[in-house]
């Protein structure tokens, strides 16, 4: 594990046993989270899992009840102002001052972060162009996606070491989402760290070096996608000539037989056995897929599939 909070210069965010209660309800329950320099770290969880609460503690907006938290080597509650010069933040639900134009808000946020220099005008205008934002409109006239763009441009145009992005693409269209992904890929090359909270799994899959899955205020899994995949099942779909006889095989789940067609989820250990049985039955077509993050997610939150926050 990566040592003590803030000790290594390669760790930009470190929490250990982080706990936050609102009255009797526990929002964060001993959360551990580590983000290293230069990595894109996806922070995944359904609505209400504690993602936003974590980010607000990292910003010093909320005070942790117990546990350790270090941000860029400092204490986010005590050193808020000094630390904020080195980070940029995009809230999940972007609200803007209705009487100000988008352009004014971008500049204002840049100047608030860095009162002397403000934003680099070249980066700013490049971003405005790439995100195709009309900066002369009053914020009250913006759609949700355009409000999101304003906050994103203000954050991405900065030279912050750490970007805290809370569901940054929730309101963007697919084209703009692709633009956002391109930028994140470029940013990663320049050595910034990005903490990206999301429940859009394709986004994390496309962008993230490492993933932390949070549920009910606790980190239930952390690692690279490769590390997590070995824990999970392979999805197998086949069309066979005879009966495959997969019922009752240990490690086979969600088996669906539809005439000659067979679909199931297979544990790593049972894969050889399953392929053997399919082979004996006579394979006509076969598809084996590594699990998508979607499926990882469904496994952790399968009980909530029918209620809120279900991935599509």
């Amino acid at each position, binding site marked *: 594990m990566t040592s003590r909070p803030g000790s290594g210069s390669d760790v930009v965010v470190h929490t250990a046993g982080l706990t936050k209660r*609102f009255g009797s*309800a*526990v*929002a964060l329950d001993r959360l551990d989270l580590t983000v290293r320099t230069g990595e894109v770290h996806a922070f995944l969880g*359904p609505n*209400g899992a504690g993602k936003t609460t974590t980010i*607000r503690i990292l*910003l*010093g*907006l*909320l*005070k942790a009840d117990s546990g350790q938290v270090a941000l860029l080597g400092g204490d986010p509650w005590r050193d*808020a*102002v*000094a630390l*904020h*010069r080195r*980070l*940029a*933040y995009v*809230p999940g*639900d*972007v*609200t*803007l*001052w209705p*009487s*100000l*134009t988008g*352009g*004014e*808000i*971008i*500049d*204002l*946020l840049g*100047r*608030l*972060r860095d*009162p002397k220099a403000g934003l680099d005008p070249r980066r700013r205008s490049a971003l405005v162009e790439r995100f195709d934002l009309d*900066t*002369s*409109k*009053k914020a*009250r*006239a913006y759609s949700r996606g355009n409000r999101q763009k304003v*906050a994103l441009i203000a954050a991405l145009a900065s030279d912050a070491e750490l970007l*805290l992005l809370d569901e940054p693409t929730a309101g963007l269209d697919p084209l703009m989402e692709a633009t956002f992904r391109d930028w994140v890929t470029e940013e990663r090359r320049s050595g910034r760290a990005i903490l990206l909270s999301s429940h859009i799994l394709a986004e994390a899959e496309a962008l993230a070096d490492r993933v932390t899955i949070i*549920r*009910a205020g606790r980190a*239930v899994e952390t690692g690279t996608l490769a590390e997590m995949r070995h*824990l999970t099942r392979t999805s197998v779909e086949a069309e066979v000539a005879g009966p495959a006889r997969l019922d009752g095989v240990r490690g086979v789940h969600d088996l669906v037989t539809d005439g000659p067609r067979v679909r199931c989820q297979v544990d790593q250990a049972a894969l050889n056995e399953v392929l053997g049985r399919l082979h004996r039955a006579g394979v006509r077509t076969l598809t084996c897929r590594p699990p998508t993050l979607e499926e990882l997610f469904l*496994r*952790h939150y*399968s*009980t*909530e599939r029918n*209620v*809120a*926050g279900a991935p599509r």
Partner: protein
Amino acid sequence: MTGFAGTWQLTRLAFRRDVGILAACTWGIVAVVALVARDLGVLYPTAARRLALASHAGGNPALRFLFGRLNGTSVGALTAWRFGVWAACAAAVLAIFIVVRHTRADEEAGRLELVGSGAVGRQAPLTAALLAAVTANVAIALLAFLWLPVLKLPWAGSAALGLSIGACGLAFAGLAAVAAQLAGTARGARGIALAVLGAAFVLRAVGDAGSAGHAEAALSWLSWASPLGWAEFARAFGSAGECWWVLAIPLAAGAAAVAVAFALAAWRDHSAGLLPDRPGRTAASGLLRGPLGLAWRLHAGVLAGWVAAYLFTYAAFGAATKGIGEFLGTSAVLKRYFLRIGYQHTVIDAYLSAFMLLAGLGAAAYATSAVLRLRTEETGNLAEPVLATATGRIRWALSYICVAVVGAGLLLAAAGLSAGLSYGILTGSVSTQLPQLLAAALARLPAALVLTAVAVAVFGLLPWEATAVAWSIVALVAIIALFGPSLQWPAAIMDISPFTQIPNLPGGVVTAGPLVWLCGISVALGAVGLFGLRSRDLGDLGPSFRGPRIHEWLVDYLRIREQSGDNPGNIT
């Protein structure tokens, strides 16, 4: 008539949302008229007294400017003079707010989009809003018709007064309906309608003041051009009898405006205004820098409106002061009242002091609203992006507090300057009146600052109750300051109000002591509030979790916990 489908449901929705406030406002407007009628009956019990008042009020241009034409000498005619135009203004403001609230405001917020996707006609929301406004104004007319005769006023005059107020409300309901089609935002629509109301007031005021002394003077046509003028030309309780046909003018104007609004609504796109939305700056100017620049930018427009209203009102008060001695001299009771709230020996000083007290209360209310904007920004997620930058909480809060304090100071300076200039010019003594009244106004600043600091303290310590507590204290102080002296409340109660500690200027004896310790209290309360802000969670909704976000979060949380209890094997 498919354009009107769903009108009945939307009308019921409008009443469901507004029934309380509509009842309170209609009742309130009529109640003030009734109270004025009762007081005038008490203050001027004899015909001789009323004649003295009428001969003075009818000829004083400043009083005509403020209140309008006097059409007789009965208690009823004096009531219609003293509050007829102002009640018509109140009814107009009420109608504007109702109509815009249920049309453009709902459309801007996207609620009408949801409604419009149902089996609801294009004209239904506008019709429902107008029905709500019509109901309110009919209620005003009816209440006046039923209530004023109880005070022994004639039936015919009561009906004419009630109808002239209600008809003016209806005319402005129609105007607001048009404004809601023209402007793309609720704020813009209210702005257009209120600007027309302001212009109507000025037209009538100038027309009435300009024709003082000679009934059909050259400027009378200005009053005839104003919807507020129509309210006085109906001559409720007039000695020459009511002039009923005048009431048809506002009704016809309202109906014409409604027809225009329907035509525009049938033609325009949903959520589009007919006036183009002007593009703004594509980059921030040098002024919009740091939290202070932001706070100033957010408040400048509203503050400018307040300053303009102060300048206008205090110019009128200052102008009316000149004749106030003779005017008050006509009622011994009124003279006693003014002397009591002003504690003064000369009636003029008492009158000016009472109005400077009002200026102080208004400035305190402005500053309180400016400070409470901090809480609105906090709960509206607008504090978050600012505090996530290199801006500390204290600096953020101080920026808004600074604007509040400067705003309160500006308002009081405007009151003093405006009253001093207009009174000074009319009496030829600007050089003495201007500094005297400016000092009298600014002396109220420390008391206003105490109330500002109270708002800061509750924002820091009890954020989830900040709005309720801060406004309750402002209301309490206003009640003590306005009613305490005339009802001769004990000193222990009077001392709750910081305004009690201020010397009664002009005319009173100035001592620096109270001003200094009121400032000291303000600084201490402000510091306590800032300390509270520094040590609490941002967006704190309080121990009872009444806010929606926490509520939703709690539901999610409980569901997850419940389900993880059912399926313990789910956690890897």
